């Protein structure tokens, strides 16, 4: 009898691993609280979640919210362990892991694109809305305004008396909406794209090629 009780107290290995991952990643700070007791993030303890839902939200995150996608930070096995732990917090049956959807491999090129390119460019629905495509030969012009201000700019759109440009004076482009009448000239610009590390370029291209 005593042996049985001890066995019952011992957590399955995946739950044990999940509890450690949860404590370091999900419970911290203002997120889900120790043992999922709730904080900024919702309470996870003593609730009835479907396992598939937990797995999907852990993997993909929740759009436009503070809940990140963990597929790039945890391995598929680690995500399963975290889910096992949350199911355990709910006193639920663990059962066999039911990972039917293959978790996509993390794409380092995506992060590179987000941190190095997305301020000006847009590809695969990532990056600045109205940003330049990655095709070569994008035209950059030297704009001069009525008040004498002059700067290199990429033209995003024009119409209804407004001209939207990317002001490329500094490393971070500034999207500016100008009254077209303010612009007195659009000459050739001396501006040059900053150098791209070939290794980074290869990884970004690999990401672009992903379906």
């Amino acid at each position, binding site marked *: 009898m005593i042996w049985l009780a001890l066995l019952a107290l011992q957590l399955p290995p995946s739950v044990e691993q999940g509890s450690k991952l949860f404590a370091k990643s999900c419970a911290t*700070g*203002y997120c889900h609280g*120790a043992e999922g007791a709730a*904080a900024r993030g919702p309470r996870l303890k003593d609730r009835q979640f479907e396992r598939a839902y937990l797995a999907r939200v852990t993997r993909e995150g929740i759009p436009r*919210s503070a809940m990140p996608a963990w597929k790039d930070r945890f391995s598929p096995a680690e995500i399963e362990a975290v889910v096992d732990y949350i199911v355990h917090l709910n006193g639920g049956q663990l059962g066999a892991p039911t990972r039917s959807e293959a978790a996509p491999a993390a794409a380092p090129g995506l992060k590179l694109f987000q941190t*190095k390119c997305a301020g000006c460019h847009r590809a695969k629905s990532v990056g600045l809305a109205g940003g330049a495509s990655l095709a070569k030969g994008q035209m950059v012009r030297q704009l001069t305004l009525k008040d004498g201000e002059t700067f290199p700019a990429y033209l995003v759109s024009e119409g209804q008396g407004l001209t939207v440009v990317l*002001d490329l004076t*500094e490393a971070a482009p*500034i999207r*500016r909406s100008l009254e077209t009448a303010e612009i007195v000239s659009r000459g050739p610009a001396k501006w040059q794209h900053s150098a791209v590390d070939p290794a980074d370029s290869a990884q970004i291209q690999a990401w672009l090629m992903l379906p």
Partner: protein
Amino acid sequence: MLMNAMSKFLLLLLPQLLLAQSTNANWPHYGGSYQFWRHSALTQVNRTNVAQLTPVWAFQTGMNEGGLQSTPIVIDGVMYLSSSGNRVFAIDAATGREIWHYFYQNPKEIGVIYSPWNRGVAVDQGRVFMGTLDNHMVALDAKSGRELWNVEVEPLAKCGCNITGAPLVVKDKVIAGVTGGDSAHRGYLNAFHVKTGRLAWRFETIPGPGEPGHETWSGDSWKFGGGATWMTGSYDPELNQVYWAVGNPAADFYGDSRQGKNLYTDSIVALDADTGKLKWHHQQIPHDVWDWDTAYEAVLVDLPVKGRLRKLLINVNKGGYTFVVDRTNGEFITAWPVARNINWVKGIDESGTLIGRNEPKVGVPTTICPSIGGGRSWNHAAYSPKTKWFYTTAIEWCQTVTVQSEEPKEGQNFFGGVFSLKTTPDGKPGGHLDAYDPVTGQKKWTYESKYPLLASVLATAGDLIFTGDPEGHFFALDAETGKKLWSFPTGSGHRGSSISYSVNGRQYIATPSGWGSAVAGLMGQLWPEAEQFRNGSTLFVFALPETKK
């Protein structure tokens, strides 16, 4: 001739500038005035008639998640209101009619914990300025809402930070802080040119190699040491200094890998408004291991200290102490507690040094009071020049902290521990709003609340103090006695900041109603019913009934 005309004009303007510490018809800045008094000089609504206060219009933002945490700005009868998800509305401040709206398009993936709320915009020179959840700054045309410029401060995935606080416009620059104090990130404060959006200056809150203060970080810890600037600063036009409060070091609880004082975290910094150069700093908590953000408002007042008029700066720290310094040079004047349950330190001596630090050890669950939610949360205090008192809320609650060693991963959460809320030793957790003499810390009165009070305080020259509670009551207290004079149920808890303004001679009191935020979420651990408190996002506007003509 020209110089003569200029100096005459300046002489005429000077008293105006000096008197502008209280607001009048307009509510031009996030803190009311540059001095952050959150005090209105209007007296039409006062303690003799506040009981007749009645709602005149309400405005719904349609974005309930995260509640409504902002401060509206009012200029010449137009209100500018922002909500969660970076929505901005221009509203006729007398009628509630929408003039325009601007919905910022945030990317699908935000994934940082500092979202989805926004705490306000800045309006100046015909422009509306807002920081965004994906760490951009935008400028809008105040008349039409058209976007004039939009610049990314730093990629979200890299810094794990964004902008939720209201910017501050000083002359031709708009200054905005960033979140990220709980992320592996090196904090900064940015000033942008109002017209072009170009970066004018950047103040790094953690000194880099070769800079004074860099030696207060061991190893490479400075690279990911936090030091967020997530709230709004204040400005002294006479000294031309911008004051900003710098938050906690990261990791929040685990300090072994960042030995040293960790400057300029948990400090007030005074910067030259034109260049962003550091004039002085005062660090409240060297080597913080409790997540005591010195991030809140800096209230600028001139009051006698030991018989001598001093230019002071008052700042309530999340650890439950109020620090008072001389704002010309950062000299420590005094510190006094606002919370009753404080055990992370035994006291603070006359030089401002912490006595008897209670630092949790790695892996050992330790009871710390107050909780990470703060001896007070960020919601702001008010100062009344009439009573010369400082009005602030405070919270009584504790927590069990377990510190974990942690390695930083750029842009990702970096807390170094977990916590669970606990009740206080006397078993009476809750909140209160108190009036203090800010120089002595002497308490003048207390208003007790069942739940933590998480809305800012508004003071008016009508001898009134306004705030709201988590259950949705918006209420007025007598500024001299703390007696409740009026209350109105708005239907959702209060987490934002109320204001007062006037249009065509009629005084209005406006309050955001809408429960949400990280600290609101924490409350469920101590008060399970708080998990059921209703979200919302509505601005309520009150006035006295119009007299029949």
